[in-house]
């Protein structure tokens, strides 16, 4: 018979096969093996972790650390399934502080490779090695030459599971995945040295960062100098939650979400809830097709996070998801809005070949050849004292401490955006400041100024809500209707009046006066649909976000249009407004509103070398 399956009796699978199937969940490619092994090294207190790959890790992976090592008698246990030194009870599982906790990784790797584990603790005169292959650890450790620490060598990954092996990409691609994984780990642990080589070629080599400057060098090595030049460091703590790290300016957006590093208690995670919080925080300043860049570490009581939800440990679950969302969103939102024009630290624009080609074509951001120039004296045409031009490092220092510069240290204030000198083609304002020329897109800038004003007005005046002639019936799943009912007060504050009229039915009676009522029904569905699966009320904020989008449109319509002739005093007034406005660097669609052209760049155009 066609397509039928040969019927056999039900049988318990052999242990080896079970292990191989399970292992597939933990280690699906060389990068996952490296991640597990490096996490073990970090859990063992390593200061230096060295990773060597051959043929993308498919032929050989070696991970060597200088951590505390494994005593001889525990070596067999380390390879055994469900054997771990990191937790001992359910209680421990509920407050995991280490990266590993399942006692699964080594056993999984062993199940699909030829593995040898060498280790030496501080008290042993020499090291011991235990070799294994395809899940069968050789019985007795043998003496081995080994410095204090552990080395795990993984040969012929997936040799026993050819089906899996077929899914591997080229060695180059696998090596890149390993590199990405290691970069993530390196970002999470600036205090540890990491090295990676592939077929003898060095891919990554970073030293532990003792101070902030070294930390920045590491960041530049891992994420690129451009990221560093366009990011600000911030940290804050509130009610047991701590967030620290770099957020990129909205103008440094990406076509892919490839510069988004978020750790929760040192563990790199990809979390939908946190991702959504960060997207919302940037939403006002970013085009919807672009992605923000950030390197952030969230720290909280381990007991408030469940790490045991994903085979590769890349997802977590929060006990108080809504609070974590609000914390993250609130902080990043505020940090972005606290940004004020800082010409040193903004879209510099380069002319000619001097600019390094940007790695990825960026429609909005401009090549940044000039922004992070360290210690360069300010323009020669202006008599600004050299001390008033803070270096990048100095600036970072100030922001790191999260305190404003002492008032005495600021020189008689020059306005960051300088003074208008002319209007160009009815589109741009030209202004001069100490560093050179400022070019402002007047429509985009005015649009942002208005938009922020409208939003402030909305926030201050409350959200008026227009009653509907006939209530609109919305059918939706029962849990969502339930959510709407319990949170009706929050919805009302955002202008939405809903009544539950049945198990899975809501009646919308009034909608925010700013929104067309039919749009609200979709919005409500969306908001409730999302909020119930993450158990958070935070997404109700999207009702407000939707009103902001309407305000953004109004701002766009109301902003001055091209060819409007402006007097110098009008232009200066706009520049001053911009300096006071949150997110003034971007229009509502994420395009920059102004750029700085350095005098040095102009010099270069005219071959006026120094």
């Amino acid at each position, binding site marked *: 018979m066609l397509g039928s399956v040969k019927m056999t009796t039900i049988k318990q699978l052999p242990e080896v096969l079970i292990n191989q199937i399970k292992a597939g969940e933990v280690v699906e490619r060389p990068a996952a093996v490296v991640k597990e092994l490096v996490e073990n090294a970090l859990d063992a207190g390593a200061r230096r972790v060295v990773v060597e790959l051959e043929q993308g890790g498919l032929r050989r992976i070696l991970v060597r650390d200088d951590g505390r090592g494994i005593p001889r008698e525990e070596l067999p246990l380390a390879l055994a399934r469900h054997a771990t030194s990191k937790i001992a009870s359910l209680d421990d599982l509920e407050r995991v502080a280490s990266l590993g906790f399942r006692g699964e990784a080594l056993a999984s790797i062993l199940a699909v490779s030829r593995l040898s584990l060498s280790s030496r603790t501080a008290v042993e005169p020499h090291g011991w090695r235990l070799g294994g292959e395809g899940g069968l650890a050789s019985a007795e450790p043998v003496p081995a030459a080994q410095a204090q620490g552990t080395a795990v060598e993984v040969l012929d990954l997936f040799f026993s599971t050819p089906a899996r092996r077929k899914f591997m990409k080229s060695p180059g691609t696998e090596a890149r995945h390993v590199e990405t994984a290691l970069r993530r780990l390196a970002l999470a642990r600036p205090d540890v040295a990491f090295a990676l080589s592939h077929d003898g070629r060095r891919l990554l080599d970073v030293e532990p960062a003792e101070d902030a400057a070294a930390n920045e060098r590491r960041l530049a090595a891992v994420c690129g100098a451009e990221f560093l030049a366009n990011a600000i460091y911030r940290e804050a703590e509130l009610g047991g939650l701590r967030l620290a790290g770099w957020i990129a300016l909205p103008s440094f957006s990406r076509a892919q979400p490839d510069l988004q590093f978020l750790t929760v208690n040192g563990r790199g995670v990809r979390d939908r809830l946190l991702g959504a919080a960060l997207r919302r925080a940037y939403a006002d300043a970013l085009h919807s097709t672009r992605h923000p860049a950030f390197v952030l570490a969230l720290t909280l009581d381990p007991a408030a996070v469940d790490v045991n939800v994903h085979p590769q440990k890349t997802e977590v679950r929060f006990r108080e998801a809504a609070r974590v969302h609000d914390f993250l969103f609130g902080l990043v939102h505020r940090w972005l809005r606290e940004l004020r024009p800082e010409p040193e630290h903004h879209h510099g624009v380069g002319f000619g070949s001097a600019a390094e080609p940007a790695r990825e074509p960026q429609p909005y951001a401009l090549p940044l050849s000039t922004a992070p120039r360290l210690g360069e004296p300010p323009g020669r045409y202006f008599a600004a004292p050299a001390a008033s031009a803070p270096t990048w490092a100095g600036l970072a220092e100030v922001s790191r401490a999260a305190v404003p510069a002492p008032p005495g240290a600021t020189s008689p204030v020059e306005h960051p955006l300088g003074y208008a000198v002319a209007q160009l083609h009815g589109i741009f304002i030209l202004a001069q400041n100490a560093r050179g020329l400022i070019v402002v897109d007047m429509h985009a800038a005015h649009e942002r100024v208005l938009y922020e004003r409208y939003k402030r007005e909305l926030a201050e005046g409350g959200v*008026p809500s*227009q*009653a509907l*002639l*006939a209530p609109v019936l919305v059918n939706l799943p029962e849990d969502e209707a339930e959510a709407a009912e319990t949170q009706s007060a929050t919805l009302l504050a955002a202008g939405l*009046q809903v009544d539950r009229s049945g198990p899975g039915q809501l009646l919308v009676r009034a909608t925010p006066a700013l929104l067309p009522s039919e749009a609200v029904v979709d919005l409500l569905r969306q908001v409730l649909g999302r909020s119930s699966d993450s158990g958070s009320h935070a997404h109700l904020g999207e009702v407000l976000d939707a009103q902001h989008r309407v*305000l953004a449109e109004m701002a766009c319509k109301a902003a001055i249009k091209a060819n409007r002739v402006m007097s110098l005093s009008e232009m200066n007034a706009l520049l001053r407004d911009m300096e006071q406005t949150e997110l003034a660097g971007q229009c509502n669609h994420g395009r920059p509103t102004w750029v700085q052209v350095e005098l040095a760049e102009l010099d270069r155009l005219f071959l006026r070398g120094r």
Partner: protein
Amino acid sequence: MHIRHVRNELLGALQTVVGVVERRQTLPILSNVFLEARDAELVVRATDLEIEMEVSTPVQNLKPGKVTAPARKLYDILRGLSEGAEVSFEIAEEGRMLVRSGKSRFTLATLGAEEFPSLAGIQADTQVTLTHKALRSLIERVSFAMAQQDVRYYLNGMLLHIGPQWVRAVATDGHRLAMSELALETGVKEDLQIILPRKAVLELARLLDGGDAEVTLSIGGGQIQVQLLNLRITSKLIDGRFPDYERVIPDSQDRRVLGQREKVRAALSRAAILSNEKFRGVRLQLEPDLLRIQTQNPEREEAEEEVEVELDGEPMEIGFNVTYLLDALDAMKTENFVLELRGPDASGLLFEAGESTHSKYVVMPMRL
């Protein structure tokens, strides 16, 4: 085709129909007008596929024929010619129409008249005849409340509800509703509801004069046709179910305000100056014999107006979109008006004071 006539007459004919020509067209022929010289008349027709307008004007017909020519350009040319000038249209060669007047010559590109779409050929199931004045009044009293580009497409028009004894016009945008009724022996046996698209309503309002001449509405096959002397308007009807307006109109309310329409209207429009320009919210405080109107804008500028009214019922406070109130008051004709209210969360009902209350305006409150 070759015709000749005075500029003013030709301009008038074009002016009548040019409004339906959409400025942005994907179908090129729709930016043209259809012109046909037959007998002693020139027929001018324009359409946007939803509505069609055809007007005929007597001309000197030198050679019968038909063609389509760019509507706006022809209109602008005629407008630019001097008042009493004589103008001729002539098909000079294939694809070209020559417009001549005195020393001016214009050659316009034409498209074949056969391709010009037509809505005509209506099968009238129902015919209702009423005066210009009555139809115009129905439209004027409710059309302001029509929705505009709402996804609930059936709101982007005006409902005509035709019963045996009356005709009602109703319009709503979901926040307010306007209804006007005209007593008329319509001859229909069963109630009939049709929705006229917004554009047809606005064109009708423009073209109806306030006189006692009669117009006939022919309805059938999803279309309506209105014949006004030498002008024929044909429009598709909106195919949808209009909301049950009768349920929305409250019948008895426990507070009743009687006010002078012009006084309250003027006070509201002054206060509106300092309302929030985005929401247009206005607060009404009803006290015995007094209506206090308050507005405030984000700059914290404030307006307060007090108007004498007669209040029957308990004092209360309620918020409205001031535009909705002004629209309703503007649509009324009488010296006094009535506002009935139940509570701050319930709808308000406005109508003209007097025995004959033909029009009703429902306005939903705004929580400020």
